[in-house]
């Protein structure tokens, strides 16, 4: 047989003493990189727990239920309840305002917009997500706050000020403003996921309803929502996760109340969330006191809450997308 090339020997050698073993190593390296993520999460739990442990052991359960917050040496007491409540209340406001708007946006974009408008409009909504949190905070501090105060909070205070949650003189830097800004910030996430969820509803459902003469709204309400319900719920939970973890924008508009004064009894008064107290106080905390440990312990609580919410949300959304028809 005529061999066309005279160099086959060299190739043979090159291949024979080969790197088949390297393929195995390659797989292990890649697996190691993948495991890195898991390692980081596990390590995070361990280190944050260890960092916060001094405060937790010192105050025990009172850490979660106490409302006093005093870093002064000799009279140190740390209770995180106001901040936990602050996180929950601001997140709740964000959900109440943000989720309906997000679903409205998603409904418009998936069911009602014409093709030409859909792309640029959805792109603009996405851009909302790209704006950094600190710029939301800056805008909230110097622009939005006065609008909130003049057009919403002062009227509220004047008319409904006898109701406890609207009591006190509002200055614009308070729980309500923080909640509203959070609502704006979760709109891109919740609406994007809601849209994907809605698009995963098979068209056959819509067509059946249209064929009977249903209006667009009726199609949405009776053909799309029943299918998408769990996915929409999952989208909202994702928004909740974002709202809980959001730091800078909240820090800059919530007014930096501390201790019992931070209890969110009134929406029109300054407050504090778990994330914002850490941002506000960490750099000034005396490293030789329990103050840093207390802040880290709050971080641990935040970690657990955020983790639980995100895990639940991811599970819900992926389950709906998988069973009802994939987007991919």
């Amino acid at each position: 047989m005529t061999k066309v090339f005279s160099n086959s020997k060299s190739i043979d050698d090159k291949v024979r003493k080969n790197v088949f073993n390297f393929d195995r190593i390659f797989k292990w390296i890649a697996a190691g990189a993948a495991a890195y993520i898991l390692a980081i999460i596990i390590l995070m739990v361990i280190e944050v727990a260890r960092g916060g442990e001094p405060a937790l052991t010192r105050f025990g359960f009172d850490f979660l239920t106490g409302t006093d917050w005093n870093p002064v040496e000799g009279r140190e007491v740390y209770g995180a309840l106001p901040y936990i409540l602050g996180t929950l209340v601001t997140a709740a406001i964000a959900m109440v305002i943000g989720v309906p708007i997000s679903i409205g946006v998603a409904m418009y974009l998936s069911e009602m917009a014409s093709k030409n408008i859909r792309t640029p409009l959805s792109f603009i909504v996405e851009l909302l997500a790209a704006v950094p949190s600190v710029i939301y905070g800056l805008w909230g501090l110097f622009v939005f706050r006065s609008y909130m105060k003049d057009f919403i909070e002062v009227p509220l205070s004047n008319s409904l000020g006898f109701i406890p949650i609207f009591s006190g003189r509002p200055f614009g830097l308070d729980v309500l403003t923080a909640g509203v800004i959070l609502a704006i910030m979760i709109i891109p996430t919740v609406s994007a996921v809601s849209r994907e969820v809605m698009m995963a509803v098979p068209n056959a459902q819509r067509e059946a309803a249209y064929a009977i003469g249903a209006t667009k709204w009726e199609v949405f309400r009776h053909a799309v929502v029943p299918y998408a319900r769990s996915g929409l719920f999952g989208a909202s939970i994702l928004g909740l996760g974002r709202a809980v973890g959001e730091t800078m924008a909240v820090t800059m508009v919530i007014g930096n109340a501390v201790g019992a004064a931070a209890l969110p009894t009134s929406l029109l008064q300054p407050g504090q969330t778990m994330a914002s107290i850490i941002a506000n106080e960490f750099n000034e905390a005396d490293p030789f006191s329990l103050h840093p440990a207390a802040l880290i312990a709050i971080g641990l609580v935040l970690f657990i809450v955020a983790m639980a919410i995100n895990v639940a949300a991811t599970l819900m959304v992926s389950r709906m997308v998988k069973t009802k028809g994939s987007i991919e």
Partner: protein
Amino acid sequence: MLEDEKITIKSMLPTNKEVQSTNHELILGRFKIILDNFSAYYSGKPAIKDISMKIKSNAVTAIIGPSGCGKTTLIRCFNRLHELISGATTSGRLLLDGENIYESGANPITIRRKIGMVFQKPNPFPTMSIYDNVAAGMKLNGVRDRRKLDEIVRRCLEMSALWDEVKDDLNKPGMSVSGGQQQRLCIARALATEPEVLCMDEPASALDPISTAKIEQLIDRLKQDYTIVIVTHNMQQAARVSDYTAFLYLGKLVEFGPTKQIFENPTEKLTEDYISGRFG
């Protein structure tokens, strides 16, 4: 007549009588690939059952049969691509020059160099030029000498009858040529690693008649230097191009023999029914 090939027989070969006589034939260089009770499975379900056949060197062997008969699975076993699918396994022996390529410890990478493959739909590497496509097998195995690569690229493109058409455009992207040319490019690419066997899985089925004719002429020329196994669903093509034909049905080898005999005087009724189009 065929020249004898120099074969090195590894000491790991089993020594029972049957295989010895097989080896005897090997030494005469007549059979390049021998399947011995070979089966292939997907997650435990057999797609190919107990196939035994001998593929002659420097000849074209066609594998025909209706869809789902296992012919693509079979040819992908030749260069150990079958096992890339998760859950895919094999049993039995597949001997290349007397060595069982499925022996534990056998290096699939070396085997794939010796048994090249051309796929149904032309698949040149999308980010590489024509030159780089042909040289890919060499470059990715560490060959760096520019002159050597130039020589190899030219020879392979000439052998696949593409050189004249692209010699001035070697740096153009591999995807920029027509479908038929892309397939010849893939053939050149497969030839660059100096395989001894060339497997072709329905190489012309995605091409127009003129390109198909060119590929068939190519196969006829290539068999002088390579052993060719071609899967085809086009019986006329098998009749035109091959020296031997294997007819598969539902994973089993129904009949195997010289093409002339299979098409004009088949032994099995099943074969005759398929050839005459009573089922497809």
